[in-house]
């Protein structure tokens, strides 16, 4: 692993002394990133995601564990001896240098001959569509242009890995989506490895090949976007990425990836995902509000389908509705408890309804 991954963190911890003892900004973080991957580290502020990125970049030296880049141990090497470049949240363009001087900096500092630098700058300016801006100073550029310059500067010396620390957070919401697509295309085109830190789950889901979700210094789950959204490992992940209904019940029986769970006297069937429960264990079930379908009370399944348990449908009464434009969130009071159902567009719910879902969409997760 260490030798073949492009970036490998081997149980890395970063500790700060505080008045209350030691504070672990990152705790036994193990990650492996493959060449060509778009790998995101997702977490709220204080989750340790930036600390982790800074240990890869060489700005922090971990107290425990090892950092490997391109098959070599680099744990204690300074940033200028690592073949990874960072795009900072603030872009960190040098204010007293022109755009061209900024982009040329990695080559200038590596003492490339002038004749070799010039054509590469021209090429980079063209590639990032900032041809006319070579002589401007960073303060004269818009946010989006500054971001392009920062990218061009980080990529001019062709690093193995690009680290991006919330590169879109300083941009307007409207430009952000445009740049997001450009970033993804760039990574594909140049076949680069991106390690992308963000607190925005939508960004992470839309862009990444794989995501590591961090919480309180620890990695909670690593997986593909659909994996993490559909089969979250913990209640934290389920809540952090999207909205979720949680139910708490007791396991009655287990069988090939399924479990019968008793909730408030009702029995429903649930799928087993990352957490395999014991019989009689108290477990947490998760159903995404958009995976609950609404049917008229009239079209309930026939008696023999229902048998003794309710399995995956239930009667509910509307208690509230929130209109948020694209979707509508409807609150139901059901025998299982409060359930929220999300509907798209102008669909309107009948006052009383049957809620149903696919058994695969009701999964058992770790109770935090």
């Amino acid at each position, binding site marked *: 692993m260490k030798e073949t991954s492009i970036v490998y963190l081997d149980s890395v911890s970063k500790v700060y002394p505080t008045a209350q003892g030691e504070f672990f900004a990152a705790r036994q973080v193990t990650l492996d990133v493959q060449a060509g991957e778009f790998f995101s580290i997702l977490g709220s502020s204080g989750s340790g995601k930036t600390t982790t990125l800074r240990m890869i970049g060489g700005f922090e030296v971990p107290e425990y564990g090892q950092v490997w880049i391109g098959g070599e141990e680099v744990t204690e090497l*300074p940033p*200028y001896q690592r073949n990874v470049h960072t795009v*900072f949240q603030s872009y*960190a363009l040098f204010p*007293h240098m022109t755009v061209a001087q900024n982009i040329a900096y*990695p080559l200038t*500092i*590596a003492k490339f001959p002038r004749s070799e630098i010039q054509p590469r700058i021209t090429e980079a300016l063209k590639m990032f569509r900032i041809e006319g801006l070579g002589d401007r100073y960073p303060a004269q550029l818009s946010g989006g242009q500054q971001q392009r310059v920062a990218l061009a500067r*980080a990529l001019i*010396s062709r690093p193995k890995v690009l680290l991006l620390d919330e590169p879109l957070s300083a941009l307007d919401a409207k430009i952000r989506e445009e740049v997001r697509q450009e970033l993804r295309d760039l990574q594909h085109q140049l076949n680069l490895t991106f390690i992308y830190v963000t607190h925005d789950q939508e960004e992470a889901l839309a862009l990444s090949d794989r995501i590591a979700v961090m919480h309180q210094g620890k990695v909670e789950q690593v997986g593909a976007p659909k994996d993490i959204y559909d089969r979250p490992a913990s209640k934290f992940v389920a809540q952090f990425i999207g909205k979720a209904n949680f139910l708490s019940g007791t396991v009655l029986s287990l069988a090939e990836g399924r479990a019968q769970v008793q909730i408030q006297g009702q029995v429903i069937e649930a799928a087993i995902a990352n957490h395999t429960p014991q019989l009689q264990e108290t477990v947490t079930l998760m159903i995404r509000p958009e995976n609950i379908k609404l049917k008229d009370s009239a079209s309930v399944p026939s008696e023999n389908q229902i048998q003794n348990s309710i399995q995956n449908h239930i009667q509910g009464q509307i208690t509230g509705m929130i209109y948020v434009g694209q979707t509508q969130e409807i609150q139901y009071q059901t025998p299982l408890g409060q359930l929220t159902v999300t509907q798209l567009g102008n669909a309107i719910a009948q006052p009383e309804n049957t809620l149903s879902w696919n058994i695969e969409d009701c999964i058992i997760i770790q109770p935090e």
Partner: protein
Amino acid sequence: MPRQQPQPRLLASWSILVYAFLYLPIAVLIAISFNDSPILSLPFKGFTPRWYQQSFADQALQAALVNSLKVAGSATLLATFLGLLAAFAIYRHQFFGRNTFRIALNLPILLPGIVTGVAMLAYFSDLGWDLSLWTVILGHTVFGIPVACGPILTRLAQFPRSLEEAAYDLGAKPAEVFRDVLFPYLWSALISAALLAFTLSFDEVVVTIFLTGRENTLPMEIWGRLRTNITPEIAAVATLISLVSGVLVGLSQGTQMNADGRR
């Protein structure tokens, strides 16, 4: 017709009074320096450039000016360099003792000049050094360091750490980071610091009296004359010194503000 916005008139008039109070003595001094009367006093009896001509021709004043420039120039270089070091030390010690360092740095500037003077005199005589312009330079450096450190530290505190990290990240070694990123950023603060240190050194009397040998600096020369013959020539020289000080301090603060604006 657009509606007028209310103005804070009371505050404005009060503050004009405060400024008048600050500047009246200087205005009187300037008036006297152009007054066609041989005593150091008003009322104004007519305009004359005579006192200025007289002071420009004065050999002793010229020699004192040269000494002042030598002392102030050397003390400024030393103080700015050492102030830069001190500012860095304070800036880097993010956690432990940062505030202690900062207070420790500011104490000497607020010690009475008389204490600094006596202390350094005793110190130099223990070391067996003869008093000369060099001892004056060292004395001025002592209070120049904190003064020079101020603007540098202020600017350094605004320095976005990410610029430094970006330079490291892109392959620059520590010395190159200083040359390419930190120094261009601090440049305006260094100028500002040097101007301040120069002004203070140029104007200083108390410490100088203790530490100088036979050579007089310009304020010392004035000081000496005030005891014997008080003429409007003194007022003329004092006006000129005020003008130079004012311009230097104005330049220093202007440099700082420009840099702030550009950032």
